[in-house]
């Protein structure tokens, strides 16, 4: 049930991102490229413990999976 609700939520959120992106672009000017450095890419776990694990665990998972 929870994952079923994630799809409409993710869809709406991704579209909302386009609106926020436009806002950032309009407000950001030339400095936005620097400000956005700190934005994470895919893996963002909001947990210091998980964060510290990522460096080695991805590859470990990758080897196992591949």
């Amino acid at each position, binding site marked *: 049930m929870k994952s079923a609700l994630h799809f409409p939520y993710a869809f709406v959120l991704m579209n909302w991102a386009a609106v926020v992106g436009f806002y950032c672009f309009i407000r950001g000017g030339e400095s936005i490229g620097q400000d956005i450095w700190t934005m994470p890419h895919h893996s963002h776990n909001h947990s210091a413990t998980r964060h510290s694990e990522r460096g080695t665990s991805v*590859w470990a998972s990758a080897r196992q999976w591949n």
Partner: protein
Amino acid sequence: MATTIFWASFAAVFYVYCGYPLLLFLLRMVVRKPVHKAAWEPFVSVVIAAHNEREHMETKIHNCLDLDYPRDKLEIILSLDGPTDGTERVARRHERHGIRVIHWPTRTGKAEALNRALAAAKGEVILFADARQQIHPGALRELLANLQDCSVGAVSGELVLLDRLSEHNGESSNAVGIYWRYEKWIRTMESDIASMVGATGALYAIRRSFFTPLPKGTILDDVLIPMRLVLRGKRVVFEPLAKTYDNVACCPEAEFERKVRTLTGNYQLLAQLPDLLLPWRNPIFFQFVSHKVGRLLAPHFLAALFVSNCFLLYGNYLVLFGIQVAWYLSALAGRVMARGHGVDPVAKPWVLKHR
């Protein structure tokens, strides 16, 4: 009037998310441009721009050193952009292994960091990578084989998002993982037909001679560099055998931050390369508008679809309105269940820029 807006918005949303991929699927059956691959071993510069990546730097350096490629034909350049967390110390420890560290004391942005790295690079081919993801050892050779085709200007690897928390430890099957697979499916078809619209920032390669310095403040180097090449008549292709791995975002909120960055970058791209919107200048105008511009416009079409439906509350339109309401209520329920993960993107979108 409301009926026209409703159906026009419906058609636009359907086209962006379903029609365009289906059209690509059909087109690929008729038009398919193979890449003439050939093995070769040029001198390669691996370029990694990083700000504060102390936790990943050690692993990343070892990962690059483990690439299946002659060490004497490989240089690894770490372009550090005003790190404050000890990233430089970690990187310097590996200078004795031949790692080149370019340290800049103040933050100037990723584009400037890449420009500095490229000015120092000696490789005939440049492999761009991010600090966090782990590259498969055989990925470099797979990418290079594509660059032997003279029509290819850039080649992108495949970013595989893994689900660490799942029992099978395989490619993620959560909402973000499925969305990413859908995106890769589109990119694969675009590549097969003509050219991808951009590359995967975590792993892509170009010939050094094709590189021109990036404008300061560029957000999406992985789209700007390839699209410049597309405007020069080159192809940007996808190599699914060149894999790089990352953990999937834990939740849609985390993916949201990445998506904001990407979409902000797409707006910036339109300002940097307005020729992309000219069909006689952009060889992949159809793909660019359908994929990139369509995603930027989709939320506005969705809003128009909902608002116009509010004025059409009768007959079948009432059913469609009910479906829309149910969809957004489900999204709201999903948000309520996901709250507490940190970022609240709906309440405070502006915090993203100032974090």
